[in-house]
């Protein structure tokens, strides 16, 4: 009888220890809105489905753009623990899901980024995946990076590293800007990598059923 109790107790202990406590990702300030809305209540949620992974990125081969694209793919891929998103550079724009181009000139490559305070030395723009795939016959998302004049090459290089990761966030489905300066998805990002809130938001997006899918 006592032996049976010991065995039952051990089995109960095993069952109790079986599951580790998962982290909380949905508290009020743990994430931010990623979906666009069509008033009054239609939510537009875009993400790349599993059968379209890895997402294929073509980079204009001039200057530092190929290395910036590799940086941004790695920055976002590293946020996902469970295979929800991955990306890969491709050498041909006709094979790409996302095309990344320069506008307004090509800054010199291989310039170490400035270590000083972040300045607004570049701009980025991403075509809205909802507009591309739902509202038009488009098949590619476009990202355009623009270096701005009046800044040092190092300041432009630092800005481009922040902005390319920000724009990739839009391309993977984070359609809205964050309201916190600590996040890479803040408009005019000042941080150099996705934050915990960025990661939580991206993870939640990729576990939320999409309402818009790529063509």
């Amino acid at each position: 009888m006592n032996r049976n109790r010991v065995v039952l107790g051990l089995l109960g202990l095993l069952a109790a220890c079986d599951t580790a406590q998962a982290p909380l990702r949905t508290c009020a300030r743990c994430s931010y809105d990623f979906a666009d809305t069509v008033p009054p209540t239609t939510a537009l949620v875009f993400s790349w489905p599993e059968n379209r992974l890895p997402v294929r990125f073509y980079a204009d081969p001039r200057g530092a753009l190929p290395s910036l694209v590799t940086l941004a793919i790695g920055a976002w891929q590293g946020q996902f623990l469970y295979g929800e998103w991955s990306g890969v550079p491709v050498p041909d724009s006709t094979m790409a899901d996302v095309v990344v181009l320069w506008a307004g000139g090509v800054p010199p490559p291989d310039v170490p980024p400035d270590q000083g305070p972040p300045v607004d030395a570049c701009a980025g723009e991403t075509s809205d995946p909802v507009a591309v795939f739902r509202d038009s016959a488009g098949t590619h998302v476009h990202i355009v990076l623009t270096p701005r004049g009046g800044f040092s090459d190092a300041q432009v290089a630092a800005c481009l590293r922040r902005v390319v990761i920000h724009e990739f966030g839009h391309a993977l489905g984070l359609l809205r800007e964050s309201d916190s300066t600590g996040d890479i998805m803040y408009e005019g990002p000042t941080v150099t990598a996705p934050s915990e809130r960025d990661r939580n938001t991206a993870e939640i997006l990729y576990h939320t059923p999409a309402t818009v899918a790529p063509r």
Partner: protein
Amino acid sequence: MAYHIAVGARYGTALVHDSIVTPFAVRPAVAPALSAAAYLPLKPPWQGVATLDASITRISRHDSDGTTTNLGRLSTIMFCVGLRRDISKKLSAGLDIGGLKYLPADETGIFNLGAGPLAGVGGLVMEWQLSPGLAIEARYDIHQFTTPALDAEGFTSATLVQRVTLSLAGGTSSEP
């Protein structure tokens, strides 16, 4: 001294339970397992045993809607020492303790910060002798699983992983 080589199949419980919008688990597939063991005769009916064990599996994310996502290949290597005791002429049983190391094929996902340290492992083994030098072996072992990436994500404890292996073992007999 006797030696055994065992080939079999291994089932393991989930490595991770998580919930992002909906609950899901990361589980290994049933995997081939290969082990080599050296038996050292002690005072009858006891034997000492040292075992080196390896297996290669695929891990997948299993979502609550029934979909699965392949997360790549994962190998394990384990070294154990233990005791075996003859229970009857054909049946023996024993206990093992040792260390287990995960070796992911790619440092991505839950392994993107590495596989973590060696995990302590404890096991129970039963062996049924079919003929001299040939046996069926059933093994149950437990260890705790976590990775640096799971720690960084905010997991505050490890998952207890239970594995069951059924093998066919052959080799030299320790009987004179």
